């Protein structure tokens, strides 16, 4: 089993490097939004002293940490898989004795993450020198953050895979995916730290799983959560992962019955 993951990784890694310009633009695309938010919020906070108790150094620490966590937990399933359902090229993968999503797409996601981290490293260091963030990280935080980030990614992966499967019925899923990712950005804390959202949005974010994939690991790494809060959110992550995994399996099976294997 490990050999399959290893080969998938090697093939995908080689494929990603094939188109250098395209790869660089993708990587840049991923970094632009958080860096813009970082710049905008610190400027505003500097001008006003603080926003609802958030000072400029708070925003700096928040977004510098978010840059890393966002890449670690993000999911690109719709981009690597959506078109395959649409144009029927999924057929090429369905005849293989491996799961197209739970193996191949998963590895593609991880390989892309590794590349993103490589691209992020120099940019992050430059931002570090420019903004001089202050982190209060302990070993405990890091140890707890490892499962939190892994579960945060799995949560996004199963959610992304489920949404991509809507293509079995609607053929096109880009608009649904864009809608979802905007809601995600808002309720996961990318536009703005959740504590600064209006009350009803904060309530919504508490009920929905999005914050568990981004805001929770960031807050954990910033040392803002107690051990009880951390364990509770880790537990919630597991519950949501199970729910979304089961949902994905159901939608996948139903989708395959609907699959028309167009073309050829």
């Amino acid at each position, binding site marked *: 089993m490990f*050999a*399959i993951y*290893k*080969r*998938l990784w*090697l*093939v995908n890694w*080689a*494929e990603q490097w*094939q*188109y250098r310009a395209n790869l660089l633009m993708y990587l840049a695309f991923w970094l632009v939004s958080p860096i813009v938010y970082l710049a905008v919020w610190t400027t505003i906070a500097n001008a006003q002293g603080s926003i609802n108790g958030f000072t400029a150094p708070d925003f700096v620490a928040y977004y510098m940490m978010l840059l890393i966590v966002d890449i670690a937990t993000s999911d690109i399933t719709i981009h690597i898989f959506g078109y395959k359902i649409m144009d029927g*090229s999924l*057929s*090429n993968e*369905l*005849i*293989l*004795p*491996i799961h197209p999503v739970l193996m191949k797409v998963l590895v593609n996601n991880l390989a892309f993450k590794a590349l993103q981290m490589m691209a992020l490293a120099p940019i992050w260091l430059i931002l570090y020198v420019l903004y001089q963030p202050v982190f209060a990280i302990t070993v405990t935080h890091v140890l707890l953050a490892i499962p939190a980030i892994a579960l945060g990614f799995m949560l996004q992966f199963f959610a992304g895979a489920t949404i991509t499967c809507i293509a079995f019925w609607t053929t096109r899923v880009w608009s649904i995916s864009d809608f979802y990712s905007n809601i995600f950005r808002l309720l996961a804390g990318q536009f703005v730290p959740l504590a600064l959202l209006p009350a009803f949005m904060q309530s919504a974010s508490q009920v929905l799983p999005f914050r568990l994939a981004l805001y929770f690991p960031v807050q954990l790494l910033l040392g803002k959560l107690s051990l009880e809060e951390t364990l509770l959110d880790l537990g919630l992550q597991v519950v949501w992962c199970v729910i979304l995994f089961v949902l994905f399996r159901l939608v996948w099976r139903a989708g*395959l*019955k609907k*699959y*028309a*294997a167009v*073309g*050829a």
Partner: protein
Amino acid sequence: MQVVKTMLQQSAFGAPGADSNPIVVEGLSKTYQVTDREGGFGAAVRSFVKRKFRDVKAVQNVSFRIGQGEIVGFLGPNGAGKTTTLKMLAGLLHPTSGSAKVLGFTPWERNSGYLRSMTLVMGQRNRLSWDIPAADSFLLNQAIYRISDADYKRVFDELNELLDLAPIIRKPVRNLSLGERMKCELAASLLHRPAVLFLDEPTIGLDISAQVRIRAFLKEYNRRSGATILLTSHYMADVTALCERIIIIHHGQTKYDGKLVDLSRRIAPFKLIGVTLGDCADCDLSRYGTVVPGEGSEDAGKHSVQVKADEVAAITARMLAELPVVDLTIEDPPIEDVIERAFHE
């Protein structure tokens, strides 16, 4: 190759509850629901508000059995339901009704034991990654199908011997010619020594010599491995070279299932007598049978006459006695014509 054959039998034919026939299809049907609208702006808007659907019966109540080691040609005009049937048998599509067992498995349950024992090659599709050399895709398949290094080497060497792969597998797939790519596709599809092969237009778009090579390869692979092959093709040369038996499907229904030679006898029980005449301005060939228009060959004095198969001997004798015959040949009608008739019968 004996090793491959033994492994084949171990891997595939040990499937639970396997019929003695590797492919058993009973009353298979597939109906697609497609949106139905006329052209034009108004129709587009109306269709957005209220969508009309239409049922398309792609495959209707198709049944057949294919024995181990058989190569069967699956023929029919475009849209007849060939590819849909193949896709159901390869586990890509769920049927609307009916059943199928391949190597004892129900294909659309997509059991990994089944997927490991069969392959589907679609001439217009690729299972090779476009951006990297085929060699890398082969290694990926080795991992996916869990082929040991020793088995991989043996099978690869053999495929290399048959297809001459070595010079092309280090180039990125996108830089290969269609013929080279098809060779790599076939090799990638056969590394795991499938016991059942579904081939959809395996020679489409290839030049004549590439077609001949692929055909020879398939025949040899079948001979050596004993694999069962169901193939569709619009090239009759593929069919005559490879398939003793054919199944003809039209409008989703089976029209014929039997030997290719029997089809000729049944559908077209006639022969073509080709005669080249000496100096004979007013010879009337229509007295002997239906004169078939040639392709400019009359200039050279050659004519084709279609006669009933059981009258060939008598008519030939009469022609030789009554006409200044320079040359005479007796041929079967072109297989394309026979199949074409069968489609519409």
